[in-house]
């Protein structure tokens, strides 16, 4: 603080010039500070560049009215996934930096300062969980779920848009922490008392608290929305046991969100009370008790693992059945296993802190519960294997992700069973063994699943397929990079190397750290391949169009409509006669028929207010981080005012006339009838226009 008197503290809060990494890099030009300044510069340049390009091509109005303020679940889903890819890129680069540091810092300090390294592992974890995995899966559910159950939108489209904007605001706050000030060094779990004012008086933990809180509220809203959509908006005849499995896993995920996000909100809220108002929940003195935080956080944290992984299980269930041309094996057992996992996920949270002082008997109970949760997961693996058995298996990109998942995930599951034994956990807790374990669950379990979903449903969303060759290159890079980067960590962890170590004093670790470093670079290449794939696919989109909408001989209702789907999804709400509804219709020879007289369809107009709420909430969070009280109050008033204003709005609907619906549908049906059906062997060639040849 340069000045404590005068008007500036009241206007700018705790801000001073050394909060800018550029200034810090000039004041103390170390490699670590220069890397920080470069990262900040990258954020600023990217933001200016994107804004400049949008201005150059006059796209602001288009962007605002076609995307940012849209209440269409499909557009909201796509925007979630865009956020996920941006944040994935940042957090993966941070991971590479950390691997390079550890490989370089054997018996010397390396190139990153300990403080910088601490910020890197904190942002990496926070981003990957809250701002990569969560937006990705929420986006996929948002896009696919209403289409699969035959609905025209989510249950609460306006709340859906608010949830998107809150996630966007939180992600923006994470980016802001790179440019203004600094981030927490307290890890993604933000454990007090280290994150209390006594030990971390800077703005870092405040950035963490408010970014995570915004994300938490957003996910609570998303969970309520998803659950209500499944409960209330299923098409006639879409009974529970006829739902595609992805709907079941989405439902279980949303239920977990509804119950598991509030503990996170409470944990971050109480930590904020400690830091801002001097409460004593988790401090070392006056009755504070950090064990309360550990319990609250992991009451969220463990169900969160299944929030992340269940949607991916749903994706694998779809992909494996489709690319084996077989009905999903053991549907009922998969549903029961999903429900069992959802319930059990609330009974295992103590295994995250076996070593923190509770009795051995308590640890035993939670250890057994943890092992029990492996059983339904094992059931699922067998079901997927049996689905492939004797099927017409095609090794397309989504299928390769699924196979890679099945093989590597089992290894992670086994190391999880090992960690579930408290005596063994005492030996390897807080080592790289744990880091290897949870990356082994989350990369194959979540990331591969989401990338499989992205590749699999991309032609549905945009009307053309993604490039298959680059997709396979990406798969190979993800798999090899993962194995190289994380298998050595099992060895290092078992040998006793602590996690989050900035400097290594054991030369024997050197080869393993080098291998892991190479793995990180291969993972970076995998990310690069994804972007190349996207670029190449957009460039060659004319050759890979699938306008009829069924490129993979799909089973669910989402494949029964055009690609990209019309705004209203279904011209006439379908009546569902059984599981795999569209597949059965095709086999009966009845698809692509005009469903009778068209009617006018009511859809929702755009809403500027949801965007305003998100932006204002982001401003409130930023102002709270920097203690700019006037701005926080102003932002809060805007949020409250916007909610009230929306409750007065009455003219929120827009009617698409029957004639327009008919014109859109006729054009699509004509195209379907003019298209040649293709056999499965040609599905990855440009002959695939989205009409599946039906072999009986």
């Amino acid at each position, binding site marked *: 603080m340069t000045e404590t008197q005068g008007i500036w503290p009241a206007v700018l809060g705790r801000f001073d010039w050394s909060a800018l990494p550029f200034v810090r890099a000039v004041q103390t030009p170390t490699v670590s500070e220069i890397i920080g300044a470069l990262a900040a510069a990258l954020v600023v340049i990217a933001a200016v560049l994107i804004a400049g390009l949008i201005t150059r091509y006059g796209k602001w109005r288009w962007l605002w009215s076609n995307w940012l303020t849209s209440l269409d679940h499909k557009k909201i889903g796509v925007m979630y996934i865009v956020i996920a890819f941006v944040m994935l890129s940042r957090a993966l680069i941070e991971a590479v930096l950390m691997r390079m540091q550890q490989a370089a810092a054997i018996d010397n300090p390396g190139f990153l300062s300990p403080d910088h390294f601490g910020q890197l592992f904190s942002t990496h974890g926070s981003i990957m969980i809250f701002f990569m995995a969560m937006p990705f899966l929420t986006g996929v559910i948002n896009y696919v779920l209403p289409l699969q159950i035959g609905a025209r939108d989510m249950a609460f489209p306006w709340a859906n848009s608010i949830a998107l904007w809150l996630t966007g605001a939180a992600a923006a706050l994470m980016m802001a922490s790179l440019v203004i000030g600094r981030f927490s060094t307290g890890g993604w779990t933000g454990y007090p008392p280290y994150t209390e004012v006594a030990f971390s008086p800077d703005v870092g933990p405040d950035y963490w608290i408010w970014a995570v809180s915004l994300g938490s509220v957003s996910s609570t809203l998303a969970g309520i929305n998803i659950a*209500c959509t499944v409960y*209330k908006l299923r098409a006639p005849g879409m009974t529970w046991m006829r739902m595609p499995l992805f709907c079941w896993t989405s439902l279980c995920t949303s239920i977990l969100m509804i*119950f598991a996000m*509030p503990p996170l909100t*409470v944990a971050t809220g109480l930590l904020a009370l400690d830091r801002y108002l001097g409460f004593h929940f988790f401090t070392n*003195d006056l009755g504070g008790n950090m064990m309360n935080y550990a319990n609250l956080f992991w009451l969220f944290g463990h169900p969160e693992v299944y929030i992340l992984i269940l949607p991916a299980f749903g994706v694998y269930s779809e992909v494996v059945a489709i690319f084996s041309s077989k009905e999903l094996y053991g549907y009922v057992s998969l549903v029961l296993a999903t429900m069992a996992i959802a319930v059990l996920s609330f009974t295992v949270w103590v295994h995250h802190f076996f070593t923190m002082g509770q009795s051995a008997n308590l640890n035993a109970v939670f250890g057994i519960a943890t092992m029990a949760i492996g059983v339904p997961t094992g059931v699922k693996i067998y079901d997927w294997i049996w689905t492939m058995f004797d099927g017409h298996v095609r090794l397309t990109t989504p299928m390769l992700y699924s196979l890679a998942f099945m093989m590597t995930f089992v290894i992670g599951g086994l190391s999880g069973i090992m960690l579930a034994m408290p005596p063994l956990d005492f030996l390897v807790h807080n080592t790289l063994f744990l880091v290897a374990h949870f990356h082994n669950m989350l990369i194959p379990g979540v990331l591969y699943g989401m990338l499989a979903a992205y590749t699999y449903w991309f032609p549905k969303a945009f009307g053309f397929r993604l490039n298959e060759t680059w997709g396979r290159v990406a798969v190979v890079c993800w798999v090899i990079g993962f194995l190289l980067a994380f298998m050595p960590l099992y060895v290092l962890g078992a040998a006793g190397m602590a996690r989050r170590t900035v400097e290594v004093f054991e030369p024997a670790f050197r080869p393993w750290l080098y291998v892991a470093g190479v793995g990180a670079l291969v993972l970076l290449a995998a990310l690069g391949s994804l972007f190349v794939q996207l670029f190449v696919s957009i460039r060659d989109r004319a050759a890979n169009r699938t306008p009829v909408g069924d490129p993979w001989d799909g089973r669910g209702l989402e494949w029964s409509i055009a690609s990209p789907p019309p705004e209203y999804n279904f011209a006439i709400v379908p009546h569902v006669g059984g599981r795999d509804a569209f597949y059965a219709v095709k086999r009966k020879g009845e698809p692509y028929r005009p469903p009778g007289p068209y009617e006018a369809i009511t859809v929702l107009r755009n809403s500027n207010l949801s965007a305003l709420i998100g932006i204002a909430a982001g401003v409130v969070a930023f102002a709270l981080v920097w203690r700019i009280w006037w701005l926080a109050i102003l932002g809060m008033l805007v949020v409250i005012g916007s909610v009230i204003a929306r409750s007065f709005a009455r003219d929120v609907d827009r009617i698409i006339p029957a004639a327009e619906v008919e014109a859109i549908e006729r054009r699509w049906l004509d195209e379907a009838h003019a298209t040649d059906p293709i056999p499965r062997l040609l599905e990855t060639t440009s002959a695939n226009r989205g009409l599946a040849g039906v072999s009986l």
Partner: protein
Amino acid sequence: MTAASHAGLNLRSPHEPTAASTEIGLFGFWVFLMSDAVIFALLFATYGVMLAATAGGPTAHGEFEIGAAALETLVLLTSSFTYGMASIALKYDRGRRGLLGWLGVTLGLGLVFLTLEARDFITMLRAGAGPTRSGFLSAFFALVPLHGLHVLVGSLWIVVMMTQVMVIGLDARVKINLIRLGLFWHFLDIIWIAIFTLVYLHGLIR
């Protein structure tokens, strides 16, 4: 459960889309309340764990005034009753005046409750029993004022709904929101009963 089975609902035109959107809107609000209840449950648990963490400072027995708390309980329970009367006025279509009257009484009682509660808090703060004194008092000042904040939000909501009844009239969305507000208000009553029991009555035990 159909729309007609929701207490107090009186949609003049029971055609399909309105009934369906009412059903979804109310169900969603129930789910939201459930997630809010989880927040309160965790704060109750935290309070229970922190009971002994008085750090040599004021204890529950020394600080809480059961008389004031009982009066607050009476006021809040009565406001729940008057909101019920507002719901009946809505359901049986007894004109806007009855509805607005009962909403006004509810609002008044809510504000009385908030005033009484604020007076309690100020007394405690003056006596040096603020949240910064001990873990126990931190837990108290997270749980009870959060309920108060909910009542404040509910009061603002009543003002908004009274304005809408006057400006817009009783269209389907106003009715749905009045029923949601009712659920919210009764929910706060239930939370308060738990607070009275677990915080104030429990505090009587030496």
